[in-house]
């Protein structure tokens, strides 16, 4: 597979400094901040009364009444900035919508639509539909009628950095001809209350690395159009920059505080430089995360010093743009990245304004203060870090610099990706811990695992107040590591983790919202606030199991598990890391049932359940081990059979396979009539052999995020010869399953997020 070079050909931004690119760069040049007295809600009882709000926002100027009812502010902001980016890039003149995808980063999703109801029971269905994180990405993708891969990334304050990286990969590896990438978050009273409870807010406009501590919250969105260099050149598009690589990591340290030595950001930068094939001496500017909090700023500088060395770092100009825009959480990376690009168009670099004096621990840093710096910049980094310990770093090259010789990308050598470990919380408590397949087709009841307690499984992995979702997920991940460890020796610190969760822990969110509803926003719970971000679960898994490799957390609204496996498969093919845990989890709660009702999932013919599953992927395998191998993937968006078929065809092509070679198709249905109709039509279109086994394993239990992964899980069990009671399985399917060599695992979602994987017996 050839890797494409990926460039930025369009930018859109909506922030506290302006409603478009022109307004934003103009205000930056003037050294103005968007942080001032907050108007959206009452801040009298908080320690700070300021924030970076979008000024004079009028939804009617951009949307019709139906759209205003259907889209949360988060999606609205995204749509506005995407329109600007698309208009500039003119990509739609040459590339069809079917081949354009969306990678959407958000920290808080549609939280406005929930908090405005001032309740967590008896919720309004229409409003609640706008809340789920995945609906931000999905609503926007539907609005623009996109047909390429769609992913909502929820790694809190690093989300849009991760989203830019994921989109980059989709174009680089040819899964989309263009990707719209970026992030959005709107000002939220409950989020503001949480930062207030954590005493993280500054009472004056923030100025990172400066003497006065604290951050200022902001809101906004920024999006970019990415396409291949070839496509941009052929249509004579304006190119801002080339994205050369990106890196992610997990601190595995604390729910809110960064690793004190900046270990996570260091790892993210190192992965990014390695993937980009760029040397650190070539980096001539770093746009840092720099929130302004005591914990973040000095730790981040330490991390940078570890990568570049104290002396070199003191020469590289760095700045945090949060003094202009406030902290835009899930939109932070995108806003900071695009405005760095805008500045570079004029040979300028963003400054950290409102600056007086460097604080302790930041003395040696070469901070651009108060006024933008004149410099022609070639290679630069954009870094972001998050609650939950996720970090993202992007390596880019400013296209304004005339290029001497073009660095050819090394064509990757053929890498196989194996499924080398498995773990799930559902079969964990069974006496003879059997296979998941045997459990899912058995008559056994599902009730007993509801009593699952991580403390009883392994008390060292438990922490007080740990929500059920984290408990299931940690146990399942631990089992997958143990199975892998039985024949390879793993260094947990090097394991990557990609986790899919549609809703995070709503048990914890419920407790947080209750603290506000019952006592008032000034008494918001500081201990439950950190669990409001969906990536907190992946953060806890990383922390308890010491996983410090590449780390991401995603929401796709029904196929998270399979989507995570696809993301992990691509990571393994890059050969930068050797092991990647891919997993998903679901949790039941009252608030979750409210959301089921709003989405219509309560009408499913399958019982809604909870639990977690994990698979360990690796590009290494012991030659004596029987296991399954992933050989191809496909991703599309569209709630119809033809789009789903396109995902399967993509996966078949990708794995050089033909539908005639396929022995089984495992499909993950949510049990709604519309979903089942799509699968039926898909099968008709696909026209597989008559003898093929088509099966959905959800009749016993349906887990929104996890079930799709369970279908790959059971395929891996079958192909790895792990079924103990073969006779009953053969009888159940009325086929000889030992003959199976190759299958398709496929999942659509309620909104039409389609993922397909070809899985075969490893040679």
């Amino acid at each position, binding site marked *: 597979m050839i890797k494409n070079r990926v460039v930025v050909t369009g930018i859109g931004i909506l922030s506290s400094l302006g409603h478009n690119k022109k307004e934003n760069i103009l205000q930056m040049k003037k050294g103005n901040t968007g942080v001032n007295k907050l108007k959206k809600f009452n801040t009298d009882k908080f*320690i700070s009364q300021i924030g970076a709000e979008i000024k004079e926002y009028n939804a009617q100027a951009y949307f019709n009444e139906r759209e205003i009812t259907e889209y949360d502010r988060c999606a609205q902001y995204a749509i506005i900035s995407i329109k600007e980016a698309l208009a500039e890039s003119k990509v739609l003149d040459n590339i069809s919508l079917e081949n354009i995808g969306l990678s959407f980063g958000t920290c808080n999703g549609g939280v406005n639509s929930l908090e405005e109801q001032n309740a967590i029971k008896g919720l309004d269905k229409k409003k609640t539909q706008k809340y789920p994180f995945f609906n931000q990405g999905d609503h926007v993708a539907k609005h623009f009628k996109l047909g390429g891969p769609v992913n909502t990334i929820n790694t809190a304050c690093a989300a849009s950095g991760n989203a830019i990286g994921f989109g980059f990969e989709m174009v680089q590896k040819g899964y989309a001809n263009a990707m719209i990438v970026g992030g959005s978050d709107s000002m939220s009273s409950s989020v503001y209350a949480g930062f207030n*409870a*954590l*005493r993280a807010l500054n009472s004056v406009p923030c100025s990172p690395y400066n003497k006065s501590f604290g951050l200022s919250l902001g809101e906004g969105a920024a999006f970019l159009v990415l396409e291949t260099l070839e496509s941009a050149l052929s249509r004579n598009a304006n190119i801002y920059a080339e994205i050369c690589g990106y890196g992610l990591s997990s601190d595995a340290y*604390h*729910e*809110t*505080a960064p690793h004190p030595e900046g270990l996570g950001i260091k790892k993210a930068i190192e992965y990014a430089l390695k993937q980009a094939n760029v040397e650190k001496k070539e980096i001539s500017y770093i746009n840092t995360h720099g929130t302004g909090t005591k914990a973040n700023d000095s730790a981040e500088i330490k991390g940078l010093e570890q990568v570049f060395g104290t002396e070199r770092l003191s020469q590289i100009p760095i700045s945090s743009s949060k003094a202009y825009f406030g902290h835009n959480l899930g939109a932070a990376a995108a806003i900071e990245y695009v405005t760095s690009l805008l500045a570079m168009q004029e040979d300028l670099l963003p400054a950290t304004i409102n600056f007086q004096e460097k604080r302790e621990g930041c003395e040696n840093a070469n901070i651009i203060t108060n006024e933008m710096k004149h410099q022609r910049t070639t290679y630069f980094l954009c870094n972001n870090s998050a609650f939950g310990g996720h970090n993202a770093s992007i390596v880019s090259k400013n296209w304004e610099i005339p290029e001497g010789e073009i660095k050819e990308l090394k064509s990757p050598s053929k890498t196989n990706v194996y499924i080398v470990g498995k773990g799930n919380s559902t079969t964990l408590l069974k006496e003879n811990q059997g296979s998941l397949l045997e459990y899912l087709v058995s008559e056994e009841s599902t009730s007993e695992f509801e009593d699952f307690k991580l403390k009883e499984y392994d008390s060292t992995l438990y922490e*007080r*107040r740990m929500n059920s979702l984290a408990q299931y997920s940690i146990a399942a991940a631990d089992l997958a590591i143990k199975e892998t460890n039985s024949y390879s020796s793993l260094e947990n610190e090097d394991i990557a983790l990609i986790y899919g969760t549609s809703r995070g822990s709503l048990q914890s969110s419920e407790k947080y919202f209750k603290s506000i509803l019952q*006592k008032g926003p000034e*008494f918001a*719970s*500081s*201990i439950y606030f*950190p669990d409001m971000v969906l990536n907190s679960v992946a953060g806890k898994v990383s922390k308890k199991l010491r996983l410090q490799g590449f780390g991401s957390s995603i929401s796709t609204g029904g196929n998270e598990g399979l989507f995570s496996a696809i993301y992990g498969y691509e990571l393994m093919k890059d050969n930068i890391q050797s092991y990647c845990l891919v997993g998903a989890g679901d949790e039941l709660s009252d608030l979750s049932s409210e959301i089921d009702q709003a989405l219509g999932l309560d009408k499913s013919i399958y019982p809604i359940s909870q639990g977690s599953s994990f698979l360990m992927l690796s590009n290494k395998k012991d030659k004596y081990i029987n296991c399954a191998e992933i050989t191809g993937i496909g991703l599309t968006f569209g709630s119809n059979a033809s789009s789903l078929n396109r995902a399967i065809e993509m996966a078949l092509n990708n794995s050089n396979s033909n539908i005639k070679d396929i022995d089984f198709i495992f499909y993950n249905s949510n049990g709604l009539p519309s979903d089942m109709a799509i699968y039926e039509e898909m099968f008709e279109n696909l026209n597989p052999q008559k003898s093929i086994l088509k099966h959905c394993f959800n009749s016993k239990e349906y887990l929104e995020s996890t079930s799709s992964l369970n279908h790959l899980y059971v395929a891996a069990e079958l192909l790895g010869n792990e079924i103990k009671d073969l006779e009953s399985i053969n009888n159940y399917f009325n086929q000889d399953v030992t003959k199976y060599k190759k299958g398709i695992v496929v999942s659509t979602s309620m909104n039409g997020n389609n993922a397909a994987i070809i899985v075969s017996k490893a040679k």
Partner: protein
Amino acid sequence: MNKIEEIKNIIKEKILVERLELDDITAEEINDNEALFGDGLGLDSVEALDVISGVEEEFDIKMQGMEEEEIRQTFSSVETLSAYIHEKLAQIV
């Protein structure tokens, strides 16, 4: 309300056990001089903030504007915290 023993019991029961949901210890088992952070109860920085909110809520006093070192000393144990609250409440009355 201003009896020191009463204050200690509120801190242990209402704030530490109930509010922080310490499920591995009972109020009776918490020693007055046991460190709240580090080796003792092992509370972390986020929990510390919740203890502050708990004190503000239970005793209706404001703890804003305290220096970090002062917070560290005040919150080192149930003994030190109750002494601080006792003094604060005396000022109000």
